[in-house]
């Protein structure tokens, strides 16, 4: 299950979705808005996405992961819009029979999302703002 949403991410709903009788291991990764970047205090983040392509790129990542690991169920949910400190920006959940695959697939998915999915994050500081990764 893949989603790009302006609503808060519902962790218990994601967990219910992942559970199955064959699942022995579930790994969840949550990316959360921190209060600082390189010690500069962050007020909030603004996420923007090229929706159609963000979803299709996330789907590609999930497809590759499913070829590589015995994934029973997965969920990838990314927020967009304005996020405050402590808000969950992204949730990756992977259910597998055994734990090694759950960890590896979950890590692969979040690492690759950060490289290929057209979602952009602007950090709004108390004294300015900056699009992450945009400048050399």
């Amino acid at each position, binding site marked *: 299950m893949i989603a790009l949403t302006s609503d808060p991410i519902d962790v218990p709903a994601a967990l219910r979705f992942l559970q199955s009788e064959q699942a022995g291991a579930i790994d969840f990764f949550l990316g959360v808005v921190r209060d600082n970047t390189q010690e500069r205090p962050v007020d909030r983040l603004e*996420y923007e*996405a*090229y929706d159609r392509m*963000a979803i299709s790129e996330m789907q590609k990542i999930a497809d590759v992961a499913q070829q590589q690991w015995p994934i029973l169920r997965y969920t990838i949910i990314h927020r967009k819009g304005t996020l405050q400190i402590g808000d969950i*920006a992204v949730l990756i959940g992977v259910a597998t029979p055994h734990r090694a695959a759950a960890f590896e697939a979950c890590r692969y998915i979040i690492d690759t*999302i950060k490289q290929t*999915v*057209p*979602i952009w994050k602007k950090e709004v500081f108390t004294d300015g703002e900056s699009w992450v990764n*945009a400048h050399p």
Partner: protein
Amino acid sequence: MNSSISVLLFGITRDLTGQSAVSVPLAEGASVGDLLTQIHQKYPALAGIRSLLIAVNGEYAESEQVLTRHDEVALIPPVSGG
């Protein structure tokens, strides 16, 4: 296609141009690489961005790919999701 093509902008490119889409003049048979050259000429403010890619119909495109008038074209600055 001897007219122009509409290019969707996001993130820093939208902020720098002040627009969420721009129209770029482009000859028939022009490629993704040609489009990028045109964009850099028309919007020199975008030169400071670490990298700019082009997506065509929601897929990352190589610079040789030829554009048609029905393509949905987007400029993709460095992503920062997660």
